[in-house]
């Protein structure tokens, strides 16, 4: 029995206003390649599979590295960048590489462990992408206002109880 599985057609028709994706490409001059995944139902097996699509985001200030998780907002008109016209712009960094914050505790974390306040620095070796000295320094994350640094030692073993 033929089943309708026209994924390219479905993905081409997906042009949302807000998307979350991961940065793949950083070598283009004013454009960041972002990979966004849409969960699509396979009608025969009745399970959801992630189908990817790349969007081109306009960032003239070169704020992002490879692997950042980014929230994109659709531009009213596609910006005339070369070689690809960018349809979206970066509105927020959800998770930055090497600088992930726990929004509920308000501190930097690495995996499932919180970092002490002395270690709030960038890692030594940057991943693939441009080196950290080229990227402008980040602003303070909004989550840091929830708890000051001294609360780290009080909350260190909260999740282990």
């Amino acid at each position, binding site marked *: 029995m033929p089943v309708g599985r026209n994924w390219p057609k479905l993905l081409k028709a997906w042009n*949302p*206003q*807000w*998307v*979350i994706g991961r940065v793949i490409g950083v070598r283009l001059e004013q454009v960041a390649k972002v990979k*966004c*995944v*849409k*969960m699509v*139902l396979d*009608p*025969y*097996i*009745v*399970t*959801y599979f992630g189908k990817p699509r790349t969007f081109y985001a306009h960032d003239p200030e070169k704020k992002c590295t490879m692997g950042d*998780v980014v*929230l994109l*907002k659709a531009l009213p008109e596609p910006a005339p960048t070369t070689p690809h016209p960018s349809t979206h712009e970066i*509105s927020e960094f*959800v*998770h930055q590489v090497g600088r*992930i*914050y*726990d*929004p*509920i*505790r308000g501190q930097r*974390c690495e*995996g*499932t*462990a*919180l970092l002490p306040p002395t270690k709030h620095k960038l890692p030594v070796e940057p991943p693939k992408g441009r080196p950290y000295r080229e990227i402008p320094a980040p602003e303070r994350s909004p989550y840091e206002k929830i708890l000051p640094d001294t609360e780290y030692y009080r909350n260190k073993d909260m*999740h282990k109880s």
Partner: protein
Amino acid sequence: MWLTLAKLSGGVMFKGRMLGKYPIRRTRTFLESGEIVFKDRVKIMSVNYNVFEKNSEGAREFVFFHLPQVQYKNPEVQVVTFKNLTPSPFFKFYLDDGEQVLVDVEYKSRQEIVKHVKKILGKTDKELEEIETSQQQSINIANFGPRWPRKCICEIEGQLPCSSSEDFPKELRGKYQMKKRMEERY
């Protein structure tokens, strides 16, 4: 019983049973029985949880059981999951205006999570009933065809009976009408 299961699962069965852990998740009846229908403002839902920690047991079960239901009822919402990034699990909803809603999910069971999310950002039962009744009213009861209960015009009262059971009257047959036209010409 196994026939209906095979149809629901799409025929993917082995030795009379469906494949996988908790295969009821892969049935259309289970997906349609989802409770969470988001409001029109919600565009993205992101789920952060841990795979081995005890504080995110409810989140893990929610992702295992209820996430396909949520996606089935809201096909235009992008659902994104992240594993083992932060020590505490949380949900985040991104709305149309740029507003973001943070939901703490630590040490909660999946039923509590479903109730909470439905209360915050889900459509109420009244709204869902209104949508159902409006959809039923837009469907015309007088329709017939392969998609509706009455398959052929012969099933409708006041129409001719089925040509498979009774022959048509002579005047309505194409043969008779053509014969008459030929006779009139010559």
